[in-house]
């Protein structure tokens, strides 16, 4: 638990809005990726929520995506359990219905405790930038990617992203 407390402090200084604080590039980079990352209630550091920005140069640009994070009691020996908001994320490695993410470092056998919540957010952001159609959770999008049909890909994603309700109105 003390590790999560330390992470929380670090996140607070890194993501603080007064950017005079940020003296190094890493902090700037995290600020460009993460809108917010905080525990749902300060009395319970095992449940967190986050919002990340869609990477520029992808259909996700100018959209923001909410994530639910759950840290098991054994964290950081075991990885955090992270989901996108259900029905909000069209991505070949994300289950559209549940929001589950297929990412190796979030699995027990590939996780290492050297990761923390902020770097994990960055890993998910990179997954948005570089989808991996060979281990899909959304087969339709993966198939379009495999045949490299860019216009179909962009069109489908734009349709989903503009049609899907904003996270605040999702039930």
């Amino acid at each position, binding site marked *: 638990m*003390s*590790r999560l*407390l*330390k*992470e929380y*402090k*670090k996140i607070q200084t890194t993501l603080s809005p007064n950017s005079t604080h940020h003296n190094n590039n890493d902090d700037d980079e995290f600020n460009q990726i993460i809108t917010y990352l905080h525990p749902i209630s*300060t*009395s319970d550091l095992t449940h967190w929520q986050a919002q990340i920005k869609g990477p520029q140069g992808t259909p996700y640009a100018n959209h923001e995506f909410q994530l639910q994070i759950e840290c098991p009691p054994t964290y*950081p*020996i*075991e990885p955090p359990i992270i989901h996108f908001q259900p029905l909000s994320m069209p991505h070949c490695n994300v289950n559209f219905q549940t929001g589950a993410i297929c990412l190796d470092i979030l699995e027990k*056998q590939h996780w*290492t*405790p*050297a990761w*923390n919540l902020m770097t994990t957010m960055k890993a998910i952001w990179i997954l948005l930038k570089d989808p991996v159609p060979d281990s899909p959770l959304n087969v339709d999008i993966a198939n379009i990617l495999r045949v490299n049909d860019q216009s179909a890909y962009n069109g489908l994603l734009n349709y989903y992203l503009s049609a899907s309700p904003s996270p605040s109105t999702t039930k």
Partner: protein
Amino acid sequence: MTDNNDEGKDAGSSSLALPFADAPTIVQAHQKDLQIESILTEKLTTLLTSLKGQLFTNTYPKEISIAVKLLYLTLTTFRGRRTLGEEYVDLIYVDRKGTGLVKRYRKLLFILSYTLGPYLITKVYNKLCAKIYANEEDENRKKISLKQVLSAIVETHLVLFYFKGAYYEISKRLFGLRYSIGHEPSANEAQTREQSTNTYKLLGNIMLLQQTAEVLPICKGWFKSYYSKDEKGTLTNEKQSQGDIQAGILTRIPNESEVNHLNLSDKEIFPFIPEDARKCILCLAYMTDPSCSPCGHIFCWECILDWCKERPECPLCRQECQIQQILPLR
């Protein structure tokens, strides 16, 4: 001690003085007070959480409970009122002889030593430890025995209380705050009191046995080392301080108090490790007992061991790292 008790009996039989309280009554009052203090602590914690946030209350739980004790005792004992626990079993403070009330400055001294004493002692003690660690290995042993002496004093005091039922806290003994019962007990009450007092004496006997069992081996060790010192000088001394290492073989797992932990928050330990590399990536705190994996990455001993039990690879570079390959740096 015996003087006190005799005088107590005298005071009890004389018509004016009140009888001294017995051990079970005092414990009962103490428990009631503890309960009240825990309620107060909870309230203060909630208040501080809303004012200063969860982080603050998580960092200073000890200080908060001390503040509550200080507040509680100042509002009751120092003002000349009784605490709720004392009221519950009808106890009042009297001086050592049981013939007069306790002076105010004594009460103040008691409150300060009772609340702040243990806290300050541990703080000073830890500081001393840190200094001694840095200076000399040999002094280490003295420090450990100091800790043992302190806990022995506390335990002896408890045994005395179980036998005599006079002072439950050391600070009350120091400043002479004894308890009397505020009324003449009826025959029935006196009988039950005597019975439970005997139970406490039995408890005292058991504790005395336990203490003897603990102290005897230590004395034996001192005795031995004293004699062997005469014969072989500093050589055996060194052996002893290494935690029962004989001819390079560890004969038992050393107690937590005997382990000489290295913490990198002390800048004088391993000064060649730069500041930005002194924290363990696993617990994010300054490393305790820095330990090296075969690939050369450094972590806390406990952190890397915990992880390698889960999966035997370096958390940073995923190179194979069996538990037996991890080397603690000394």
